[in-house]
């Protein structure tokens, strides 16, 4: 198994506060790594430092062994890394299908080719497959902003999958999503993991979701890594129980 992502001693300070305080971990190809930890412990900030939304104060991020620290989000995405944000981020004025097409279009050809070349290049078909998977067929032409919160959350995740990424970072994908939809999401993650060998890092508070989906779990507290291990090891870890699972 090759290492896809290496995070080495990443720190992020906001003023005097260290939101992320020297975090190191690796992600192996094909695994689903869960990240848990109390609110405000720096999980989202860590994602932002890995994917270029924020520049880390210190530390390195490596993708396939190459240093990608400080690369901008567009370039990270074109290297096959995509993400969702904790707050919903769909394009409300575009239709569901247009949202998905947009999420895939920049991965094909050149800018000029996109303007003058064939208009579709399989994108609509790919978008409709994704729509089918998440059972959003009846809403394909609806304004994304008019969907229910849970439906928008699914669309948001589906957009991150459109370009066929090899590594996806999901920030609390299950928040506000009902049980049926959660099942669809878990099924999709597992299918992409099994069929395409896609690797996932998932921040999530829903313990059932994390423990049943992830191959490994990383626990954060106050900007630091508290523990890493299999779901069973984490459940049994006294420090974790004390800091997080206890309350």
């Amino acid at each position, binding site marked *: 198994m090759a290492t896809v992502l290496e995070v080495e001693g990443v720190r992020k300070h906001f003023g005097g506060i260290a939101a992320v305080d020297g975090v190191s971990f690796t992600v192996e190809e094909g695994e689903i790594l869960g990240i848990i930890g109390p609110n405000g412990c720096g999980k989202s900030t860590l994602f932002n430092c890995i*994917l270029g*939304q924020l520049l880390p104060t210190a530390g390195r991020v490596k993708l396939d062994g190459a240093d990608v620290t400080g690369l*901008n*989000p*567009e370039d990270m*995405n*074109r290297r096959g890394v*995509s*993400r969702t*944000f904790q*707050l*919903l*981020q*769909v*394009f*409300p*004025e*575009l*239709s569901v299908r*247009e949202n998905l*097409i*947009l*999420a895939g*279009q*920049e*991965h094909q050809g050149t*800018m000029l080719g*996109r*303007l003058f070349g064939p*208009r579709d290049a399989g994108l609509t078909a790919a978008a409709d497959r994704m729509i089918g998977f998440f059972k959003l067929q*009846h*809403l394909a*032409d*609806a304004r*994304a*902003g*008019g*969907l*229910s*919160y849970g439906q*928008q959350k699914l669309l948001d995740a589906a*957009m991150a999958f*459109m*370009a066929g990424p090899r590594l996806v970072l999901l920030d609390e994908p299950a928040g506000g999503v009902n049980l049926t939809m959660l099942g669809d999401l878990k099924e999709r993650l597992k299918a992409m993991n099994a069929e395409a060998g896609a690797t996932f890092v998932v921040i999530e508070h829903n313990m059932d979701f994390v423990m049943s989906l992830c191959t490994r779990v990383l626990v954060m507290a106050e900007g630091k890594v508290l523990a890493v291990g299999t779901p069973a090891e984490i459940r049994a870890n006294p420090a974790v129980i004390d800091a997080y699972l206890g309350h």
Partner: protein
Amino acid sequence: MSASRVDGVLVTLIAGAAILWFAPAGMGRYGTYVLSLWLVTAVAVMGLNLTLGIAGLKSLAQAAFMGIGAYATALLTTKAGVGWFSAFAISGALCFAAGLLLGFPALRVKAHYLAFVTLAFSTLVWLVLRNEQWLTGGVFGISNIPRPVVFGVRTDNALPFHRFVVAVTLILALILWWLVRSPWGRAFLALRENPVRAASLGVNIRAYTLLAFAIGSAYAGFAGALYAPLVEFIDPSPFQLSASFFLLLMVVAGGSGYQLGPFVGALLGVVLPEWLRFTGGLYLIIFAAIVIGLLIACPQGVLGLIERGWTAIRRRPMVGNTPVKDAV
């Protein structure tokens, strides 16, 4: 944007052009001139609608770009003996290039810096037009700007020139219609709605921002190239900063982001002041009051108002799709 609405835009554009082709019958020279001026203004507003309404960038130099196009066309056709079609292309290209040069440093910092940079640029262009007499004729301007010869037909009279303006406007509007429906148009919209999310999906924010601004500016250049032969005499005054604000107002009044919005906005901006002329010095105040009233009633402009009315008429109960929360 459903497919049916976009096709509606296309049908309206073509039908509108057909009507305007024959509209001046019995209108006289002046009425025909006002119609042509409306369309020329609409071309500049169309460009700003792409920059502001679709891509969400604030440019305060649309009239300055129009000035560059008008002066380039006037100089090329009167002094250099260049034909109108070449002058038209050069005017657009010049504004596109100026847009890239101006946008590149501004947009590297932050998208809203574009407002400041274009504000300064507006002033600079106006000063050059007024003070560099050797080139621009200063306050005396440039006169005797020839009207184009199209396929051997002279357009010196009001009616043939009007028809020429209708044809050019239609072509420019169709190109923009095509562009907005293209993947670029989708990326421009994404830029306005959520640049952070767009970047995380691989959208090259800097390239698209720059392109939206440069293409929007090129349309001002095209409008200028039509304006110069329309009025046949140009001086710096129509290209002042206040004119750029006026064009901005037309984008918003017509319906920012709506593809037919520029025609409605320019109609309000050009034709309404003509109708209000009988009020003498009060017409600008009345016009401003109408626009303010409109924007209070409907911030989405006239086309937003029409769309709202239309959906209210057609509203059917929605099944299985209860909007709970808007996107954050």
